[in-house]
């Protein structure tokens, strides 16, 4: 519940008067509490123990009158404060209250004065609640009947009278044990009342309030706020018989929340989104900690991870690329903010990926040693948990009486993703939509995501959680797709002048690393810089310093069949594993630091275009290289400096229009074996023919028998 801007009209008098009273108190004026100076009121007074004590006396005298659970003892007072605070919390009018802090600020001091750890704890907790809530309603009520200061309006005198009765019965918090003892009983002696343990009470109150403060699903209004509005409205308007029109009042209040009141005299200034954006960006420009003088300056002048974005932007501008200078500056400030928030070792502005609704600013960072991301581990654990769940399901199925034929299809083995700080996951990427918005970290990329990203072409919408609907289906949402494209672009277009990076001296042999080549490099301290003209003339002067991504989706090749062997031990389908055991060839890509001249051509044109930034004055020009394969990827080099940047839509160049692949043909449900094939029934002729044949066979058999019998008889006769 944010505070609306200060209401020009005078807020309800009681709070203001209360506040003004507090203000006046703050200024040290003598507090002349009028007679109904209830302890609640008294406690609003700033540190002034004398006043306190006097009020305590007042309290005691008032106790019997009002029937409150008053008392001179700290516990009683504390009771009251609790009660008051709870009352305050139970609904209140949301008034624009720049002075809202007052009661809260005053009270802690007050309570501390009283001493007693319990009291302070209790009070502290109460105060927190009070601070959180906007609860002027009951303060209003209390102050209404408490004060008789001259600046009260007449209507609130009315409140005073009415609320006296009202307040005697008091708002009953369900869990408030002290309230169960009705203070309106005569002769109620609160002195015998025992205060329950503050902890469960606190908890109950907090729970109740938290529950009430839940915002509704359909809008950003919470029940608490709505009730506050409703009750304020009722109290302001004082309709006859409010209970009967409660329903319509409820509806009207809800309607009014969403329809701002149109003032006929003056329009409220529009809250334009541009103002909000400017507000957010203002935070960028403020220095942290308010400036502690020279110390901070010195720290900052020392090496920071923040890149010199402005210098890069200047050089790129010479080349005709890049964002405008104030946008570059804002990006610079945003990167600085990122470096302050995260434990970052190196940081670089990777580029900007444009989207349909919003764009992404991408920063490439690497964390300091040892600052490993805990998120990764959590994600992995979840995945493993998911896999474990699948096994029992299959077993259940098998226990059915009818054995369901198992599908023949086996998913291809999952290729494990690369470790952090290596290969495609060498750097971490943070994105934000605009400078000033918070930076979001992108998850690591998996090989299957890269493989799928190669097959689809979707524009980015600007929302990280947007689904990527495509065929073949992409495993992940827009954040994953974005990360995959970033990985592809980095691997393809990050180049540097020859000699800037070199391999370390302690690298192992190529054979040891499986023939994949070396995968790390370091800066060459002796790099002298290549003349710009040479950089422009020949592509051999530039090298890739990002590892090439193999068709598998990784930079270092992993044999997927090795995993199958592990599964064999655990799983049951040993036979089927053999089917996949074909010779899988190792995929090899060009090694690190290969020059650009080795890049494959697209359609008879070179994948890179070089330019001098200014042909009129070549001595001060900058060499610019533009990628033809990934439109939007640029690199510049001048002297010892170079930089890569990408500003574009995140797609590869294709001379043809993009055609998504067609869906696969429908799989066969079962193999066509003769036992399943339906035999055709014999026709009538066939049946008759068969019958005739059978009869003939019978007849022939009978004749043979007769012959045999005759033969036998003849034999016998002889």
């Amino acid at each position, binding site marked *: 519940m944010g505070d609306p801007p200060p209401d020009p009209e005078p807020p309800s008098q009681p709070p203001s008067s209360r506040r003004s009273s507090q203000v006046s108190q703050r200024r040290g004026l003598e507090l002349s509490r009028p007679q109904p100076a209830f302890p609640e009121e008294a406690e609003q007074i700033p540190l002034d123990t004398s006043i306190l004590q006097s009020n305590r006396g007042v309290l005691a005298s008032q106790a019997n009158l009002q029937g409150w659970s008053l008392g001179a003892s700290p516990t009683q007072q504390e009771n009251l404060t609790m009660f008051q605070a709870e009352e305050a919390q139970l609904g209140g009018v949301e008034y624009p209250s720049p002075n809202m802090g007052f009661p809260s600020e005053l009270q802690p001091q007050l309570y501390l004065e009283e001493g007693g750890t319990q009291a302070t704890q209790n009070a502290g907790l109460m105060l927190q609640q009070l601070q959180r809530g906007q609860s002027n309603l009951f303060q209003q009520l209390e102050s209404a009947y408490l004060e008789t200061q001259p600046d009260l309006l007449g209507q609130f005198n009315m409140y005073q009278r009415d609320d006296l009765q009202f307040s005697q019965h008091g708002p009953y918090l369900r869990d408030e044990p002290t309230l169960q003892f009705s203070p309106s009983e005569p002769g109620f002696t609160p002195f015998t009342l025992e205060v329950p343990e503050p902890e469960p009470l606190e908890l109950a109150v907090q729970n109740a309030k938290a529950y009430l403060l839940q915002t509704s699903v359909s809008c950003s209004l919470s029940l608490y706020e709505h009730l506050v509005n409703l009750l304020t409205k009722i109290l302001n308007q004082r309709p006859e018989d409010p209970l009967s029109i409660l329903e319509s009042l409820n509806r009207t209040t809800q309607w009014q929340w969403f329809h701002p009141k149109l003032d006929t005299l003056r329009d409220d200034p*529009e809250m*334009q*989104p*541009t103002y909000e*954006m*400017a507000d957010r*960006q203002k935070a960028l420009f403020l220095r942290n900690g308010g400036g502690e003088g020279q110390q901070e300056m010195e720290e900052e002048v020392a090496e920071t991870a923040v890149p010199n974005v402005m210098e890069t932007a200047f050089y790129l*501008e*010479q*080349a*005709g*690329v*890049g*964002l*405008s200078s104030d*946008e570059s500056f804002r990006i610079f400030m945003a990167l600085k903010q990122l470096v302050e928030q995260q434990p970052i070792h190196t940081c670089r502005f990777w580029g*900007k990926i*444009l*989207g*349909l*609704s*919003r*764009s992404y600013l991408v920063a490439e960072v690497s964390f300091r040693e040892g600052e490993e991301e805990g998120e990764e581990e959590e994600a992995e654990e979840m995945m493993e948990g998911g896999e474990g769940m699948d096994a029992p399901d299959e077993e259940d199925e098998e226990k059915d009486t009818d054995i369901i034929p198992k599908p023949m299809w086996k998913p291809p083995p999952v290729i494990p993703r690369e470790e952090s700080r290596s290969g495609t996951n060498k750097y971490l990427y943070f994105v934000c939509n*605009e400078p000033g918005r918070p930076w979001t970290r992108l998850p690591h990329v998996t090989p299957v995501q890269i493989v799928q990203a190669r097959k689809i*072409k979707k524009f980015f919408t*600007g929302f990280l959680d947007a689904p990527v609907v495509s065929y073949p289906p992409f495993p992940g949402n827009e954040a994953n797709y974005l990360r995959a494209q970033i990985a592809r672009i980095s691997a393809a277009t990050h180049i540097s002048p020859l000699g800037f990076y070199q391999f370390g001296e302690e690298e192992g042999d190529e054979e040891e690393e499986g023939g994949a080549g070396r995968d790390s490099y370091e800066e060459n301290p002796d790099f002298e810089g290549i003349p710009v003209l040479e950089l422009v003339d020949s592509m051999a002067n530039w090298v890739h310093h990002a590892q090439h991504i193999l068709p598998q989706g990784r930079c270092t090749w992993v044999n997927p069949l090795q995993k199958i062997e592990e599964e064999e031990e655990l799983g049951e389908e040993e036979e089927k594993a053999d089917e996949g055991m074909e010779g899988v060839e190792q995929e090899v890509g060009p090694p690190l630091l290969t020059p650009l001249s080795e890049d494959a051509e697209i*359609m008879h*044109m*070179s994948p890179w*275009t070089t330019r001098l*930034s*200014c*042909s*009129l*004055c070549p001595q001060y020009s900058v060499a610019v290289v*533009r990628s*033809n394969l990934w*439109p*939007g990827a640029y690199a510049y080099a001048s002297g010892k400096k170079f930089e890569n940047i990408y*500003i*574009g*839509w995140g*797609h*590869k*160049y*294709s*001379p*043809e*229009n*993009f055609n998504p692949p067609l869906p696969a043909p429908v799989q066969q449900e079962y193999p066509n074996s003769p036992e399943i094939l339906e035999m055709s029934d014999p026709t009538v002729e066939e049946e008759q023919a068969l019958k005739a044949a059978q009869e003939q066979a019978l007849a022939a058999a009978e004749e043979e028998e007769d012959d045999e019998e005759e033969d036998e008889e003849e034999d016998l006769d002889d």
Partner: protein
Amino acid sequence: MGASVRPSFSEGLGGEQGWPKALRGRGPQAVSGILTALGRAGLWSPRRQLLLATWQALSRALVTMDAESLLLSLELASGSGQGLSPDRRASLLTSLLLVKRDYRYDRVLFWGRILGLVADYYIAQGLSEDQLAPRKTLYSLNCMEWSLLPPATEEMMAQTSVVKGRFMGDPSHEYEHTELQKINEGGKVFEEEVVVQIKEETRLVSIIDQIDKAVAIIPRGALFKTPFGPIHVNRTFEGLSLSEAKKLSSYFHFREPVQLKNKTLLEKADLDPSLDFMDSLEHDIPKERKSLGASSDFHYWS
């Protein structure tokens, strides 16, 4: 108050034209904004390119020369990453003035840039009084010397539709395309393979024309039509309000209307004939290709 905004294009992702990039400056009327259109795959595809436009920073002041408006427009359009280096900017400012003087145009606008392998083309257009009349297109390789391009014709479009790939950057370059042609020779029909030479200039002309027809847009109210026919810039146009700027219906295609006559009488009753004489963007297909976004001070849409 030139609030009319010409679209311009930024990258052609995979389009045969390479990376066409155009920025439009405004003529004597103030710059309203620059639209940078981003080309998408395939110039010849029915799917057109996306536009990136920043327009909300409409300048209200009357600017008399292209010079000032050009610089401002370039700043505004920088969101897509394309810009001009300082030397190009400076040379553009001077040379465009000279073009205006020599060819006696009413206004000369910088249309943009088409990227090629060897060199880039910078394109400018000259306008006469009537805004919708066919514009003269000029190109230059170094922003200093401008040459006139022939107007686009249907045959050119058909001829160049077979060429794919990037622009070379050399205007005299000829693309070779082999096709089968039926040749009648004395009663017999032969099919021969004929190699057709297509000049890059022709291709340039047709590309520019296609881009203009597809993605040139103008906010509603920037131009108005007089009863006599010619279309003038509306000097009282102060820009679109925030809510209007977000709607696609407040933008028109800057070309002869095609769909207007198909509207029903009921729809036409709501239109104002002096302002609504062009096709609105609302009914374009596919719908998603024009989406409105906002970023800090600017509304851009792509």
